[in-house]
């Protein structure tokens, strides 16, 4: 209630209680001294107000076309809008507020809260709060949907890079550790590369790990392969006889020479040249040859023992093999042998050719002292391909053991004799 009895509103017609309206109160706060106008002034005042309202709507329409509608409370000096503009303005502000709250909810952190000033459609804040916002807004860039999407894609890309880099890093590290086993193949570049990849990994520079990883993997794999080959060579080296060995000493001497030459090469050549595979192949050949010879010797030793027990070692050291009559090549020869054995067993004396003559064994191709004799010689019927008397002979020792020659004691081939009867 005012002292003069007038009823005061924010704007509109002022009238005395129970009396005619006195005029229009200028829209000013009561403390600023509003006054009662005369009917003429009141009419002029209302006309001016209408003109101002038209002018305000025009400016609002202009502002709307620039997209800079400002939501300001009238008490803060904002403009008066038309009901339509005001409704549209409030709807847009609500939408912006909802959008801001959504973004704030997404970021969930104080640092990403967006400090929006009144000109960005934010809430009106008290001065002290507004200062804090301004301070934060200077530190953190306000997020936008585009920047948020960009951040999201960058995070995904980094994650994918890490996933790709992980096996390369692990494999390179493992191979690098294996490569460190050798005392011979230690490429100077390998430890550096390994350390580099570890550092890059720790720094999260997965792209660079991927870039360096394959080179390290390849290098380490080559070192490991060379190491394994060299280990294999050294393992077989132990099987080589000493260099003083008459037969195989040269193998060890060769290996010593080649391995020394290999060790003297730069490590790149050790790994990349074909020298090491060649040495490895040669070593395999040597070991195989030695094994074969030993096997033959072992078989030979067993055969010698048995032949000695059976009296089948000739004076010249040859083992006279046993042979069944049925195993001779032709029926004609088998029959000739059988017939001669029959004549021998039957004591026949009128056999054509030499029959029961002394045989000197001068050449030592039969057991016993060369030249000492102790054998009887018998001709065996010649084959159709032979000129008389042919090459077939029996030599029989005092025990009745029969040695058979179809080569005239080795003149026309080997062996000189077979052991065919008496064993």
């Amino acid at each position, binding site marked *: 209630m005012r002292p003069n009895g007038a009823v005061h509103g924010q704007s509109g017609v002022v009238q005395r209680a129970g009396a005619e309206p006195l005029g229009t109160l200028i829209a000013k706060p009561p403390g600023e001294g509003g006054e009662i106008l005369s009917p003429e002034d009141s009419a002029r005042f209302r006309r001016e107000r209408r003109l101002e309202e038209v002018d305000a709507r025009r400016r609002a329409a202009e502002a709307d076309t620039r997209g800079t509608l400002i939501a300001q409370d009238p008490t803060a000096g904002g403009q008066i809008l038309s009901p339509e503009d005001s409704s549209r303005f409030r709807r847009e502000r609500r939408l912006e507020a909802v959008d801001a709250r959504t973004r704030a909810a997404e970021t969930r952190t104080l640092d990403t809260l967006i400090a929006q000033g009144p000109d960005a459609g934010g809430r009106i804040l008290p001065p002290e709060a507004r200062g804090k916002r301004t301070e934060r807004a200077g530190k953190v860039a306000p997020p936008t949907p585009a920047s948020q999407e960009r951040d999201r894609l960058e995070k995904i890309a980094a994650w994918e890079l890490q996933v790709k880099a992980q096996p390369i890093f692990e494999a390179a590290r493992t191979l690098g550790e294996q490569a460190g086993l050798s005392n011979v193949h230690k490429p100077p570049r390998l430890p550096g590369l390994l350390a580099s990849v570890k550092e890059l990994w720790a720094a999260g520079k997965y792209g660079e790990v991927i870039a360096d990883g394959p080179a390290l993997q390849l290098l380490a794999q080559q070192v490991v392969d060379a190491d394994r080959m060299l280990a294999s060579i050294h393992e077989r080296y132990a099987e080589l006889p000493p260099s003083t060995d008459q037969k195989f000493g040269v193998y060890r001497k060769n290996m010593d020479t080649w391995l020394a030459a290999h060790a003297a090469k730069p490590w790149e050549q050790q790994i990349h040249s074909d020298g090491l595979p060649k040495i490895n192949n040669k070593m395999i050949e040597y070991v195989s040859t030695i094994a074969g010879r030993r096997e033959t010797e072992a078989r030979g030793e067993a055969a010698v023992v048995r032949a000695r027990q059976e009296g089948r070692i000739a004076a010249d050291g040859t083992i006279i093999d046993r042979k069944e009559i049925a195993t001779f090549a032709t029926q004609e020869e088998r029959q000739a042998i059988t017939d001669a054995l029959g004549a021998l067993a039957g004591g026949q004396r009128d*056999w*054509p*050719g*030499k*029959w*029961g*003559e*002394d*045989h*000197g*064994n*001068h*050449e030592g*191709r039969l057991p016993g002292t060369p*030249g000492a004799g102790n054998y009887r*010689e018998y*001709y065996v019927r010649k084959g159709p391909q032979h000129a008389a*008397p042919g090459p077939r*002979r029996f030599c029989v020792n005092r025990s009745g053991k029969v040695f058979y020659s179809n080569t*005239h*004691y*080795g*003149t*026309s081939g080997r062996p*000189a004799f077979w052991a065919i009867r008496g064993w």
Partner: protein
Amino acid sequence: MGHPASLARMSVVSCVSAEHRPALEAALRTEGYALLSLDGTEVRDKLSLFRQAARDVLSGQASPPSSWDGLLDSLWQALAARDETAVAILWNDAQQMLEGGLEDLLVASRGLADVARQVATTEHGFPREVTLRVFLLGAGPNFPPFPREPARFR
């Protein structure tokens, strides 16, 4: 002029001076020996002997024997194929075997003596009895003259 009495005193395998070859051959012919010459000009060891024997003694045998037993058996066959009952083999330049081939010469001498014994009888299939003698002709003190002087007795 030969000296049959001198031949009778000589071994199956004997050494004679090459200078006395004519006298030896005359004596052998007188005794009815067929003469086989073994040219020892190139014979210095076992293998060269095998080759030369195949040409000169074994009737041109296609391939030379590779062993003493083969050589001696081939000689046995060669003698069996002949008609003579007395055969003399004259091996000239035999002194060459004394320079590195002595052991082979000893084996040859032993083997030839074996064959001479084998062909002297038909007991073991040889077709007739044959007298075989071998003369090593050479130069030097190992090869005495022919005929040899009879032994002096006190």
